Every structure is written in C-alpha cells, then in structure tokens.
C-alpha cells in the first residue's frame, strides 16, 4: 500500500463518466476487431446466425455483448472488499489464459504421458542448476561487495573488473564462451558445470551490486558502536551489518533468484537436459511443440510462485525487529 488516505474518495469504477467511457472504449475496440471471425463468433451463433455472414450486425452484437459483460464485471467488483477483488480478478485472468490455451486444442493425453519425464529430468535439472548457481553467486556477491567497499585497491580493481565484465556481456554469450572457450585452455568442462559456472559468475556480478547497496544502507553508527565495543571487522560484518542489510537485500535478491530460475533455460543451448531443452525436443518428433512449450511455461510459473512465497516468508521473518 503506497499511502492509504483517511478520506474515502468515491470509487472510480462507480463514477458514471468512467463507466460510460470504459463501455464506449471497449465497444469501439471490439467493434474494430472482426469478432465474428474468431472463436467468439461461434459462441454468438444463436444470436447472430452464421458468423461469416453476419456482417455489421454480427460485429455490433458481439462487441456489445463483450462491452456489457466487461463493464458489469468491473462495476460489480467495485462493490466487494479488497481481498475479494484481488481474488476475483486473479481467477478471471487465469480463466482467460486457460481459455486462450484451450483454443490451441492441446493433446492432453500426450502432455500427461510426457509430464513425468519433464518433471523428473527437466525440473530436477533446472532446480539443481539454479540452486547450485544461486549459492555460488551469493558467495561471490558477498566477497565482491566487501571487495568493492574495501580500501584495498587490488581487491577493488578485481571486483569492479569482474562486475563490469560479467554484467556487460549477454548471458547466452557467457555460456558459449565458458563451454567452448575453456577447452581452448585445456580444461574440458561438462555442459552442466559450464552452465553452472556461467550462471554463477553472471548473477554473482549483479548480486554484488545488490549486496554492496545493502551494506552501504546501514548507518555508520552501527559500525562505530560495534567497533567501539571491540568487535573485529569480520565479526561486525557477520553479526551486525549483514543481518541488518539482509532485509534490504532480500527483495531484489529474490527477484534475481526468480530471474535465475528462468535464465537457467539458456544452458539448454549447450545440451543440458533441463526443462527448456525438454520442452523444445520432446514434442519435435510429432510436431506437438505447443503442448510441451505450454506445459514447461506452466511449470516455470509454478516454480516462480513458490520462490515468491518463500521470499515473502523470509521478508516477514526479518520484519520482526521493526514491529512496534
């Protein structure tokens, strides 16, 4: 909530001019689109007859129906409490998406047949690659942040070169460079280690900046109090500064974790059998690309939602000392 006013203004969606304007806009947009030619025309068959021959009347009737449904829906939602509003809108959007996928006429038995393998092989590999990369990236980020804040020129130079380089190159290119470049030096790395290395280095660079900002956000007084008691630098860092920086660091880091989960799909280009790789290959033989892509999309989404939930739990945990 940004700022809840103490005076309740009139609900926007109940103002006549807003309702009228919205109705007009929706009607105009859907009248411009030739609705009877779409799947919606079939639904309207009892009213407009044969969709292809319904002409202007067909377009008018279809747009009118949609405009009425949408406007009524929004006006009605305006009456219920905020939690119900959120729930209803989520469900409606979800239903619309499912309806969209339904129009692909997906082969569900095929999906069910492939799903177990996508999960045991694909999801597990994706999770494994992301989890290992996230841990390594966090370690790199802490070291990088301390180095960037230190007065040691050597450490600062290495850390700033590292963040500049790995933030400046496309991740896909880093994956190729590490997988194809390291063998030039005589190190032949497997696809999974190469992918993990690329993801860790890249995300470590981004997270270095997040950690640095988090550490810098802590008041100087905390350092002074801690050092004046006699705590060493590393004790101050571990016990005083980092625990306070974590609530600042966690929201953007959670963001990075979610992005990492999906960017791990880039390692599919070097043949790691993770979720994206399977989504592209499993349906190839029978040209059932959509089935696999949509299933993988849903799995990615569910995994991301899980991470979002974990993130909000951690944020609540660290919010304790701020409660009055």
């Amino acid at each position, binding site marked *: 909530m940004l700022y809840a006013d103490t005076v309740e203004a009139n609900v926007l969606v109940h103002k006549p001019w807003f309702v009228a304007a919205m109705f007009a806009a929706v009607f105009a947009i859907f009248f411009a689109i030739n609705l009877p030619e779409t799947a919606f025309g079939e639904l309207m068959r009892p009213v407009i007859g044969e969709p292809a021959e319904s002409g202007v009347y067909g377009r008018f009737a279809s747009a009118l129906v949609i405009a009425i449904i949408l406007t009524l829906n929004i006006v009605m939602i305006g009456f219920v409490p905020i939690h119900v509003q959120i729930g209803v809108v989520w469900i409606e959007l979800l239903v619309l998406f499912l309806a969209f996928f339904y129009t692909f006429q997906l082969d569900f038995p095929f999906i069910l047949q492939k799903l177990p393998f996508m999960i045991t092989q694909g999801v597990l590999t994706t999770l494994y690659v992301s989890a290992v990369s996230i841990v390594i990236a966090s370690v790199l980020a802490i070291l990088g942040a301390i180095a960037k804040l230190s007065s040691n020129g050597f450490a600062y130079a290495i850390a700033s070169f590292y963040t500049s380089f790995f933030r400046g190159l496309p991740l896909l290119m880093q994956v190729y460079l590490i997988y194809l470049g390291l063998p030039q030096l005589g190190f032949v790395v497997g696809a999974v280690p190469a992918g993990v290395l690329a993801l860790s280095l890249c995300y470590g660079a981004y997270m270095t900046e997040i950690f640095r900002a988090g550490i810098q956000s802590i*008041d100087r*007084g*905390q350092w*002074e*109090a*801690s*050092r*004046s*008691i*006699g*705590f*060493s630098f590393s*004790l101050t860092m571990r*016990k*005083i500064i980092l*625990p*306070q920086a974590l609530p600042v660091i966690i929201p953007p880091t959670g963001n990075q974790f979610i992005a990492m989960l999906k960017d791990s799909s880039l390692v599919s280009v070097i043949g790691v059998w993770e979720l994206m790789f399977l989504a592209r290959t499993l349906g190839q033989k029978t040209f059932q690309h959509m089935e696999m892509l949509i299933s993988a999309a849903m799995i990615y989404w569910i995994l991301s939602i899980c991470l979002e939930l974990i993130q909000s739990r951690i944020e609540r945990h660290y919010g*304790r*000392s*701020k*409660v*009055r």
Partner: protein
Amino acid sequence: MSAEPIIQAEAVSKWYGAFQALKDINLTIHKGERIVICGPSGSGKSTLIRCFNRLEAHQAGEIRVNGVQLHAKMRNVAAVRSDVGMVFQHFNLFPHMTVLMNCMAGPMWVKGVPADKARQTATKFLERVRIPEQANKFPVQLSGGQQQRVAIARSLCMEPSVMLFDEPTSALDPEMVSEVLDTMTELARDGMTMVCVTHEMGFARAVADRVIFMDYGQIVEEGQPESFFTNPQHDRTKLFLSQILKH
C-alpha cells in the same frame, strides 16, 4: 591528583583536509575522574573523545590509553576499545537484537564469556540502569531515554576502565534527559572514570571534577566547576556560558 592516569593526550592535532579540527591538545585524565567537555558546535570536542578509542585517527601528538599508545599500526586496538566504553548521541543500539542480546554480545564475542555468565552480567547492569523488565524487547520498542540507558548498560557490560559519553542527551526529548543524567550521576557516584561531552551544565556543576571548554579545536579553559561557572577567565568562555545559561 595522585591516581594513575588512564588517558594521556600530548600535543594532539588532527586535520580534516586543510581544516584543523584539533590543535595541540594536552589533557590527562586520571582514574576516577569525571570530566565534562563543553564548547560550541564544531569546536572539536566530539572529535577529541572519538580519538580516545581511535574511532578517529589523530595525525600529530600522542594518545595513550592505560599506557597503550594509539597509532595507525597498532595491533591491539580491539583490546583498547573493549576497555573504553562509548555512548553515542544516537544510541546506536543493534536494532536486530533484543535489549538483553545487545548487552550480552560484547562480553560473549569479544571476551569469550559463556552465555550464562554474560546473561547474569547483562541483567545486573540492566537493573543498574533500572530497565530489567525491557530485556526481551527490541530497541525500537523503547523510548529514547530507555534506549540510551540500554546503550549505557551495553558499554558497562564490557566492564571498561573509562566511559566516553558523546552528547548522550542531545537527541532526547526534554522529559527523558533527566532519567539518562540520573543514570550517569549514579555511575559517577560509584567511581567510574567518565569523559562527557555535554551541554547539560547542571550535570557538569553537580558531577564534574573538571570542566573543559573547547573552541576552534583548542582547549580554551579548564577548571573546577565552581570557579569555571562563577568566574570564567576567558571572554570566549564567558560568551559561551552566557548564551547557554540565558534561558
């Protein structure tokens, strides 16, 4: 004064760039002494006491704390700091720890005192500053005066040989000033060596053995509170006292 010296400053100078914050300061503080340092804003009084536990570095002269000289290459700065308590204007309690943990952390992590013993010590000093019932709260749940008393208890838990107070009441609401000053007065009565930067002239008059007036990074005047307040020697001291005591 026959007691042993705890802090000795000889010809101490400090610069921030071209600006000289401390000019040739000579000051010896003996065991059991209560010193009040006052002076206008920017006169270097906070800088001076922050040099005493080397939160700030001085560039010329010598500072010795219990005989240990403070300098850039010293190895045992943590040992000196753990023996010099410091109370800050803005309390600087650790907000992510309970009041009790704030007090236990120092003894446990610096001196390696077992948790049971540290808890006993913490409880003892929280009782001494008269807030044992707040032990399990977090600092934000306390009033400013309570937080400052916790900060005093936190320093006392290290059982320091000298306590530095850096404007301990300047950030407090008026009605909370006295509870902190009372705590400090009791501490003084128990024989703690104290160096207080403060504008609380009533406290200075009642508690101090010596009042030091600083301006432009120099010690302008020092003396017993009685003569300092009733019969200041320097014009700058007179001006300062007239401004601060006007209300």
